[in-house]
């Protein structure tokens, strides 16, 4: 399983591509690709977003679903999705959880 991630051009914020076709500031709303065709579609959308200068450093990353939550397989991506492990007051981990936040965090 994979999700599409990047950093937003204007401020560098780590973002993930959602099933609503928008970039979100947390991984929770990311569209999960479950087969090769879906991977390729996300990859293509990533390239298009890069070409439109919305995002940079676009990457398709491996994830798993744990209790319904998306969890990247690599530690690097888990830290990107959460924030520095030594500063839990910073990054995504310092924000309200998705249940409180709604689906409005897209850009």
């Amino acid at each position, binding site marked *: 399983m994979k999700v599409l991630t990047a*950093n937003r*051009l*204007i*401020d*560098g*914020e*780590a973002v993930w591509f959602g099933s609503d076709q928008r970039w979100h500031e947390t991984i929770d709303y990311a569209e999960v690709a479950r087969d090769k065709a879906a991977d390729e579609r996300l990859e293509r959308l990533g390239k298009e977003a*890069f070409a*439109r*200068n919305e995002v*940079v*450093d676009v990457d398709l990353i491996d994830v798993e679903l744990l209790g319904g939550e998306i969890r990247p*397989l*690599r*530690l*690097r991506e888990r*830290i*990107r999705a959460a*924030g*520095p*492990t*030594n*500063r839990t007051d*910073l*990054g995504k981990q310092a924000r309200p959880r998705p249940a409180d936040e709604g689906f409005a965090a897209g850009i």
Partner: protein
Amino acid sequence: MYRYDEFDHSFVQARVAQFRDQVDRRLAGEITEDQFRPLRLMNGVYLQLHAYMLRVAVPYGTLSSKQMRMLAHIARTYDKGYGHFTTRQNIQYNWPALSDIPAILADLASVEMHAIQTSGNCIRNVTADHFAGAAADEVADPRPYAEILRQWSSVHPEFSYLPRKFKIAVTGAERDRAAIQTHDIGLHLKKNENGELGFAVWVGGGQGRTPILAKKIRDFLPEEHLLSYATAIVRVYNLHGRRDNKYKARIKILVHETGTEEFARQVEAEWAALKDGALTLPEADIRAIESYFVPPALAARPEGDAAVKLARLDSRSFGEWLDQNVVTHKHPDYAAVTISLKGIGEVPGDATDSQMDAVADLAERYAFDEIRVSHEQNLILPHVARADLKAVYDRLVEIGFATANSNLITDIIACPGLDYCALANARSISVAQDISRRFASLDRQKDIGELKLKISGCINACGHHHVGHIGILGVEKKGAELYQVTLGGSGDENASIGEIIGRGFGPDEITDAIEKIVDTYLAHRSGPSEKFLDAYRRLGPAPFKEALYASEAKAA
């Protein structure tokens, strides 16, 4: 301190305007990322895991209070209230928005600072002994020469696209506090038998994936030839350095593959064509630059001895701090103070905006407006009257910067690692914090004595692990962090590259492993005066291997 002249001011202002335009055009989609990336890197802007990162140059680690206050202002206004002082005596901000960076650069320019050449394949910030101008053992202040090199190397048309980055360090004392042997060029300022100033020139040192110590290619280069000789070296490198393979592109590989003698011959041949030409430094110009670095007029403050004696009787913790973080100054009534950015369990090198402001206030009030950043990620007040030490200490206690651990095991160098860095394979900060907490007891640290522990989160070695007495390198193995330990490294005048001791340790094992190493040293040292590094050099790796791995060998 060096002051910008009119040319410097207009140059830096023009550069800010140029980058503002480049950012505007990038955000408007007029230039692509491939076109923009090299432009942003030339201005110190990286893209890291969570955000952009801006690396600001602190030439030879010297700052005024006004500049430190501006660094605090930037942390507060554009970032998340802190900055990270680096092993190149620079500062990095971890969260700036690209759209804010032109404004940040304009703010920096207003205090004669910039981010030019803090990235890219050019000559980077020239570093120097952080006690320069204050150290009792120096022959002369190395910073005027670092400044001359800075002016020469800034947007040098021939050397802006080298095969790879290029780092120069200068020390003015026999005791090398600038780690010159791990630099592309290391300069040791000294006097010859006639009392004239010049340099021993070392070339081809570096860490990264292929750690190599520099080779001395000239024992004495008269000062006036500094730029012609440096040009000859960089020219030979620019011509022959490998551009086909990023991992073999540093000058250390060229020197190694060419052979020191042949490399030196090529440099001398190049130099023969340059010597006594336009690059010869006029005596008057050297002395003019030097005049910017004349130490402040240090009035006699003989009351310091009695004041320090009294305060020591009054406060044990002040006495401990004096013993560890205060060093002898050229002037007997003064001292140089190390402000530890290594509080127990804290992030090595991090300082908040209010801590930066407080240090700026201290420097203004008690230290002639001068602050240094050390490559060991601490701050230095180079000129403090001994009579004022207690007042400085009391304020440092209030802001959490009075940990008495300079050169002890918790005075750890650590790169940002996987918590921030896009290149990292493993975390460094969390390992540093764990080790710091394990060895929190100052009595225990003092019993262990001088021990330089350095941690890198990837093979690029920003945390200088190769030259740590104990070095830790984080790698990724089967998707997990693994920490490889090296022993016996050193970045001083008796430099050495640490040796890998054996298989690596997981994040939950590494602190125990470090403790075993330390306990083994304590058990085997000839006495309390034998430092860790000396004991390792005498004993070799065997007892440490035994302590770390014997039980598993037996089990197998």
